[in-house]
């Protein structure tokens, strides 16, 4: 019984962390059709922002949930204004430029922080399920993912900003004709996507530690989640995270963490072959 509960928590955690690391990318890709290959580095920067803030005496909760998203969000807006905006409509060039950005950020953080892993200890301690103990922080990550997804849903569904964003996403020219300023919407969108990535990176920093090349560990997973999910931002991210997270965790449970990841990536390739438009290209088509 305890084992089943533990496994359930682990599966939920895998799903939550996949959703967290992907949602920023999903917003940027879903709304702007920009494939941001520097996404992993945004996560990495979020981790560093949280760690630096904590070491300057700011409370860990504040640095993770407030400082990291703000810092990375600002970086995101700067990147959009200086690089991305020249490349709209040139999907492949954007991919290449953001790959360059990714290398640049890895190099920069290596120069500043050195090529070592820094960490912050996970707060909250642990709790008991049957004969097993597990970290309470796991539950916190699940909660953060749930709150973030709910907040995105609320903003997209019920606010004016969400309405404008959805309108621009569907038809940028029409939105512009109706008085919306698409470049501004894009800049805000990119900033919000980056901020969410920063939040995810910070929340996961106590689990994984942070080092300059950690982005590589995230990038493939978040990409296949977004592409596997398809066009709808929320439904796509949630359904793809649920599918891949479950596969990953069960394969990890049966074999090793490494082969859990290999199973995840393999499953993703099969999924993209079967459903090139992603899960929401076939199912849940009316999702947000």
């Amino acid at each position, binding site marked *: 019984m305890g084992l089943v509960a533990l496994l359930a928590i682990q599966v939920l955690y895998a799903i939550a962390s996949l959703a967290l690391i992907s949602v920023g990318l999903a917003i940027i890709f879903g709304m702007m059709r920009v*494939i941001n290959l520097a996404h992993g580095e945004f996560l990495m920067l979020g981790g560093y922002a949280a760690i630096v803030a904590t070491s300057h005496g700011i409370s860990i909760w504040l640095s993770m949930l407030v400082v990291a998203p703000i810092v990375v969000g600002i970086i995101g807006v700067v990147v959009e204004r200086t690089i991305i905006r020249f490349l709209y409509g040139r*999907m492949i060039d954007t*991919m*290449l430029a953001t*790959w360059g950005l990714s290398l640049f950020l890895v*190099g920069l953080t290596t120069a500043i922080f050195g090529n070592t892993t820094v960490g912050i200890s996970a707060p909250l301690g642990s709790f008991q399920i049957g004969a097993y103990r597990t970290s309470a922080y796991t539950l916190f990550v699940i909660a953060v993912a749930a709150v973030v997804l709910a907040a995105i849903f609320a903003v997209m569904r019920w606010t004016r900003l969400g309405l404008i964003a959805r309108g621009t996403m569907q038809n940028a020219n029409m939105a512009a004709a109706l008085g919306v300023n698409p470049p501004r919407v894009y800049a805000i969108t990119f900033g919000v996507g980056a901020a969410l990535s920063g939040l995810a990176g910070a929340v996961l920093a106590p689990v994984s530690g942070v080092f300059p090349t950690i982005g590589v560990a995230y990038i493939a997973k978040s990409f296949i989640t977004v592409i596997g999910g398809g066009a709808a931002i929320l439904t796509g991210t949630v359904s793809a995270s649920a599918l891949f997270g479950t596969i990953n965790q069960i394969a990890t449970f049966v074999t090793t963490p490494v082969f859990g990841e290999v199973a995840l990536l393999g499953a993703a390739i099969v999924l*993209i072959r079967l459903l090139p438009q992603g899960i929401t290209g076939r199912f849940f088509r009316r999702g947000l």
Partner: protein
Amino acid sequence: MNGRALNLLGLGLVGVIGIAFLVLIPRLFELDVVLELTVYMIMAILALSLALIWGYGGILCFGQSAFFGLGAYTYAIAVFNIGESTIPLLLAIVLPAAFAALLGYFMFYGRISDVYLGVITLTVTLILFNSVNSTAGPEFRIGSARLGGFNGIPGIPPLNFPGNKASPIDLEGMFYLATISLLLAYFGLRLLLASRFGRIIVGIRENERRAELLGYDPRAYKLATFTIGGALAGFAGCLFANWGNFVSPTIFGLAQSAQIIIWVIVGGRGTLIGPIVGCIGIQWLTTALGANQPSGGPDWWAKIFANAPLILGIILIAFVLLVPKGLVPTLGDLGQWLLSSRTKRAKTRLEPKRAEEG
């Protein structure tokens, strides 16, 4: 001068420079320079493989290092088991080609579009990296070759003259082999691209739908291009495993993949000489910046300039934003502009696209 004559002139020039390089370098320089140049030649072959796939085939492959690494690992494992190097060399070409064919079948016949192609090839590379990286234990062995995981496989026996195990190829021999292979690969690809097949793949790159309506099957042509590129990359990997007598999983890594892309971008998509120039230039630059630190110089110097990702990242962003066509086509355009402005020919010129030359 018309395009055809220019084309032949370029070909002749490459041949002359190549042969001069081949003959003079080992006579003029010490062995360490020759060794360094050997790896440039090997990497240039790898650059050519992506130049074909991406520059001419229009297939955005972010995972060229998968075939490169697969070639290196195949050679290493096979040569430990067989001993004589002729069959391992062939295997190191055939296996990556077969892998490319399988992956390509999956992607092209699944009609997966450009961007997703990039993501899938990237993912495959990461899968290979993760799996090979985790095979450090002694239980992971193929025949008598231990995979070694993140430690890599050291002490790989060098290539020998075909059929004669007792006479391995020495370091200078490796230089000749790599340079001749590069020249053969270059002229072979030029020949391929001048053929009917080459015209068709460029046609498909320019407009896939139109080529399809004219009766060509883009899937089959793309698959063939991809397979040839995979074979070439595998061959380069085999030479690379020979060059250092060592192979490790970083060969599959993202950094390696990014480098190949950068060579092609910097040199120019749609040319063959461009990626070679880009490859050698970038390789030289990173080596020079890493090695030539002033002793006792400021700390930040090493942090900035010996920092390959930082420099490569800036180069990549700068080229995508400012010189998206790459060096060689841009210089070509410049040359043509100078020529035409001197002769003051304002006529519209109906010449074939420059992208087919070089």
